[in-house]
């Protein structure tokens, strides 16, 4: 497809930007380029990247999913409290995570596809509903610790010869799946076709309703997995998990930094994960450069603006040539 070169451009841009940031900040502050710091910059990006991968699916169909924040929080609170209350085993928690994600995501999908309500409105509505469920379920009890099995799942490694933290492996596996399905399956092509032009896709025989439902299901599922990884990584969860940090907006930003177009029809899974990593590196760099904390949020905003406008420029240039 004609898209291939542009996608690679975005990925190369992000990798270069990340490397340049690493080197420049590493020269200014020698503690920046330690193996441990790099490890944590990657680890810190996992939760957001998982959410952003789900968001990428939705945005590729010209939709948006604001409810990822409460789905993430609800999963963390429910699995965490069940463990805290009755010693839920890890396998059970993973099962519940998958269940919550699929159910809540499907609800979004049904509302969007069957009732044809604009996605931003559906997920704005379910945002309030799902966060309400979180309050009702937790009833003011916080998750304050997780057992060793969970902690290993969120921080440890699978084996001594593989010194990569489990969350990073999970992210890598999910990234591979998303990349493969979007780029190399009929379903993936249906998603992009809907994003490009739903009516044309319908006329071409794509099952628009079924595809949309699945896309929101995937987003819900990935948000739930992000919630469980968050629980295991931080060992805590409260009713403000997810919604308090506005991860819904952050995840949209990361997907767009990664080169996914909000007008639909284009999704870049690798770019999304690279975008999440770049964001994590930039935010950490601000600390190592001794920028006053008040300006971190401005730094994030500026970085989003620069990356996305540059991307738009590339698109505009391409459009002009065509």
């Amino acid at each position, binding site marked *: 497809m004609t898209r291939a070169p542009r996608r690679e451009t975005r990925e190369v841009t992000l990798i270069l930007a990340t490397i340049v940031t690493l080197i420049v900040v590493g020269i200014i502050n020698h503690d920046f380029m330690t193996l441990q710091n790099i490890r944590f910059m990657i680890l810190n990006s996992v939760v957001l990247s998982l959410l952003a991968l789900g968001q990428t699916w939705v945005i590729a169909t010209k939709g*948006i999913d604001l409810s990822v924040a409460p789905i993430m929080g609800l999963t963390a609170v429910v699995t965490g409290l069940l463990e805290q209350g009755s010693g839920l085993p890890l396998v059970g928690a993973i099962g519940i995570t998958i269940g919550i994600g699929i159910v809540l995501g499907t609800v979004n999908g049904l*509302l969007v596809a*069957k*009732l*044809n*309500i*604009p996605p*931003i*409105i*559906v997920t*704005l*509505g*379910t*945002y*309030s*509903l799902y*966060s*309400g469920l979180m*309050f*009702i379920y937790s009833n003011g009890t916080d998750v304050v610790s997780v057992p060793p099995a969970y902690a290993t799942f969120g921080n440890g490694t699978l084996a001594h010869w593989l010194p990569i933290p489990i969350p990073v492996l999970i992210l890598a596996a999910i990234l591979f799946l998303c990349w493969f399905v979007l780029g190399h399956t009929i379903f993936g092509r249906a998603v992009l076709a809907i994003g*490009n*032009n*739903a*009516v*044309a896709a*319908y*006329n071409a025989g794509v099952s*628009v*309703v079924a595809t949309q439902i699945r896309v929101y299901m995937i987003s819900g599922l990935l948000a739930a997995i992000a919630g469980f990884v968050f629980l295991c990584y931080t060992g805590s969860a409260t009713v403000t998990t997810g919604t308090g940090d506005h991860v819904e*907006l952050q995840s*949209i*930003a990361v997907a*767009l930094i990664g080169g996914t177009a*909000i*007008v639909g*029809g284009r999704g870049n899974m690798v770019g999304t994960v690279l975008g999440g990593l770049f964001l994590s590196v930039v935010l950490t760099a601000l600390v190592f450069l001794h920028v006053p904390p*008040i*300006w*971190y*949020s*401005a*730094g*994030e*905003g*500026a970085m*989003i*603006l620069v990356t*996305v*406008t540059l991307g*738009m*420029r590339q*698109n*505009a240039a391409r459009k002009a040539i065509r």
Partner: protein
Amino acid sequence: MSNSVTARRSRSRFPLGGWESSLLVLFVLQVLASSFSIPGFFDSFSSWLGLTENFLPFGIVALGLSVVILTGGIDLSVGSTAGLGAIVMAELWLHLGMPIWIAVMIGVALGALVGLINGLIITRFNTEPLIATLATSFIYRSVGTALAGESPPSGFPDSFNALGQGAIGGLIPYQLILFSILAVLFALLMSRSAYGRKIVMVGYNGDAARYSGLRVGRIVTSAYVISGAMAALAGIVLAAYYSAVRPDMGDILLLTTITTVVLGGISIFGGEGSIGGVVIAVLLLGFLRQGMLIAGFSDMVTTMVTGAILLAAITIRNLLSGRGTGMALLVRRFRNLGRDKLTEATK
């Protein structure tokens, strides 16, 4: 209640006499029901009017945001802009000793300026409104926090506080007067002026507007200027209501305001809807929330009900509009969108 631009379309599309009238009926029923069933909701006419002080800042933001959404865009920076406008106003008054009403004007002008920045980023760099205003909201937030310092200003003169808490003759809140004037202005602007028609046209079909010679970039930019100014004004009204400012004071405005605008019948894809509908939605949601809280429902239940109402209302609207469900609806919706990707061929 519907304006001239949309009246024709609404009539043809909504057999029940328009979304706005349905909202109005719902609003009247809700107020009547609350007055009879919730003790404390309608103690006196003045106390009932006084309830509006608690939600009209949302309405002021909604008016400005409506214009942006009519163009098919969105402004996620309204929360930070509200905080920033209020803080600048307060700092000018406190540290430069500027007369407070002049500081207010500068605060609103600053809101227009940050709106202009949003608009220019969106039109000049061809950036999606969602991501551009998300990014600038982070930046405005930092600036606001930096200006506010460790202990943000508070304790404004009573003459200023009256803007948020006072009422003419102890009966009609100043906020309500301000909002009414703005609502009428916006309704006239959108329905009776060439400018309003241009806004709707840009949102209805950007390409067609461009081909017919409209300066789409300027028109879109102006919408963000209006939205920024209204957000800053809302922040300043909140400052008077609290008699204090904080950088995060606008955070609660965003999601509720989008809900209001959409419930008011403005299509999130632009080009469709009226200010009248938004004004009724402001009152409907505002009185509903106040009524539920007074009836003893918790904030959590109230928030959940608001979310459910939004979903139910849009569903009902889709059903009543006779557009059916499923693919037929989708086809029609996309045709109505008039977005650049849809050509005549898809019809």
